[in-house]
């Protein structure tokens, strides 16, 4: 079997910006001294006049992006998730969210898989923070194909969008010709009748592998990829819960306030269902190689398999 192609979604972000930049002169990219890491450096090379390095000043960058958006251009403000959603939260809320400006926030290095830099740089809270801002779209793509499609969709959408990208190279799972990305629409990757596993971001590929393991034990798991956490595909979530009963959520994010919470919000109101949330369990992370951390914090396929098996019993 040939090796599965892997690529970090932050790379997809940089590549997608270059592709879009060729077609759209109104697209401008902002960064805060992390162009090499966020991969907007590729855009800078292609379009130096439309790449704005704001220096190490993320709050100011969000305000500049807001000001640019009022003049009709489409800014993509880029930095690590910790600084975009964390440090600049109030700027994103008040300068971008409240006036509902057409700013796209490209937040890279999200989640535990940032790795060796440790807890200060591992943002497991950004989805929770961003989804509380009225009108903010929150997207967490699962692979290269989806990430590039998400960047394009974000450009075409009128309004603020938070795009979440990872540092770790992840397998390409959506490379099929019929793949279609639509903001707010979940994707059923596998049908099943015993349990629905709803996953997002890099956990989608791990969840698919876990479903294969479950199948060997005779457990038939439905797998749903939720790339847009807000607005959530409520219809699909409720229909799946009705179909399979038990629901599991899997995310590289705190179990508080992220995908798990969003799914629980909907199910509690519309279809009370037993839910198990898999994610970061209200703890800070630690330094280490990304792959080892994914395993340690229980987000790898084997950990997901073990927990779902116990849950379905």
């Amino acid at each position, binding site marked *: 079997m040939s090796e599965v192609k892997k690529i970090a979604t932050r790379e997809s972000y940089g590549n997608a910006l270059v592709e879009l930049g060729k077609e759209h002169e109104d697209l401008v990219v902002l960064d805060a001294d992390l162009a090499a890491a966020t991969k907007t450096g590729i855009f800078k090379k292609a379009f130096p006049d439309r790449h704005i390095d704001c220096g190490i000043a993320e709050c*100011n960058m969000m*305000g*500049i992006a807001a*000001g*640019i*958006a009022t*003049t009709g251009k489409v800014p993509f403000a880029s930095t690590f998730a910790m600084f975009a959603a964390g440090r600049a939260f109030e*700027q994103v809320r008040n300068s971008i969210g409240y006036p509902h400006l057409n700013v796209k926030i490209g937040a890279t290095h999200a989640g535990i898989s940032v790795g060796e830099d440790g807890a200060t740089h591992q943002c497991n809270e950004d989805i929770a923070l961003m989804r509380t801002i009225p009108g903010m779209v929150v997207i967490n793509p699962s692979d290269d194909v989806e990430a590039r499609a998400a960047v394009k969709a974000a450009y075409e959408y009128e309004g603020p969008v938070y795009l979440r990208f990872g540092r770790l190279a992840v397998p390409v799972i959506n490379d099929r010709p019929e793949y279609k990305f639509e903001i707010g629409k979940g994707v059923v990757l596998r049908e099943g009748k015993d349990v629905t596993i709803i996953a997002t971001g890099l956990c989608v590929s791990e969840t698919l592998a876990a479903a294969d393991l479950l199948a060997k034990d005779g457990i038939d798991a439905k797998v749903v990829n939720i790339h847009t956490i807000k607005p959530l595909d409520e219809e699909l979530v409720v229909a799946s819960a009705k179909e399979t009963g038990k629901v599991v959520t899997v995310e590289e994010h705190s179990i508080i306030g992220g995908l798990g919470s969003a799914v629980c919000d909907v199910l509690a109101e519309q279809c009370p269902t037993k839910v198990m949330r898999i994610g970061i369990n209200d703890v800070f992370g630690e330094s280490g190689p990304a792959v080892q951390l994914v395993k340690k914090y229980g987000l790898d396929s084997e950990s997901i398999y073990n927990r779902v098996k116990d849950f379905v019993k």
Partner: protein
Amino acid sequence: MNTLELKKMANEVRQGIVTAVHSAKSGHPGGSLSAADMFTYLYFKELNIDPKNPNKEDRDRFVLSKGHTAPGYYSALAHRGFFPVEDLKTLRHVGSYLQGHPDKKHIPGVDMSSGSLGQGISAAVGMALSAKLSNDAYRVYTLLGDGEIQEGQVWEAAMFAGHRKLDNLCVIVDNNGLQIDGNIDDVCSPYPIDEKFKAFNFHVINVDAHDFDALEKAFDEARATKGQPTAIIAKSVKGKGVSFMENQASWHGTAPNDEQYAIAMEELKKAGEALCQK
């Protein structure tokens, strides 16, 4: 408008401020009154704007970074014809479009929502940068409070504007010397303000905020300055025009009661009549 006409208009703007804040039973009269002459100068003399077409593309932009002085801003916009002066009485009322702090979504003539201190200047810098990127000729103005410049984001924005040589940007600091907790140099001194902006490659002009001839010279000089942004440090009197509010930190965010309102309006009307006899 000549100087006398500007003075008369500023008096009208002040009456609008006092009326709006009294009607709301809350809001910020002190800083609105200290900036009233500047709002008047900007909206009746300096800015290239059209109340009939608030979103015209080549308009000059204004961002009220010290967003709590919305009553002064709204009063100038209303008197300039962006919306009815009568609506000032709906300030901060449920259902009114005149929010406690500027809301660009619903208020004609407002280019940017603001209110969280330190954030407006960054948006103004973004607008000025965007004009440079596409070779547009419009200019961008932003009004900051002197207390506001204690916010670190102001200096992030100033550093960037100086670095990018944004000569289409004019930052105005309303230097009335007072903030909620008292004198700004007792709370956390920002002085010398002019030297700080100079250090970030701004052309700096010190001016009396209540002298229209001096304001004209300052804004002309800012427009003529090439290769660097301008900061106009405008020395003002908090509460200017209402005797019992002048230089009182306590009037930063307090509304006059009915009696105080009557006294304030009487004072302003008399001052207006005196101007008419000139």
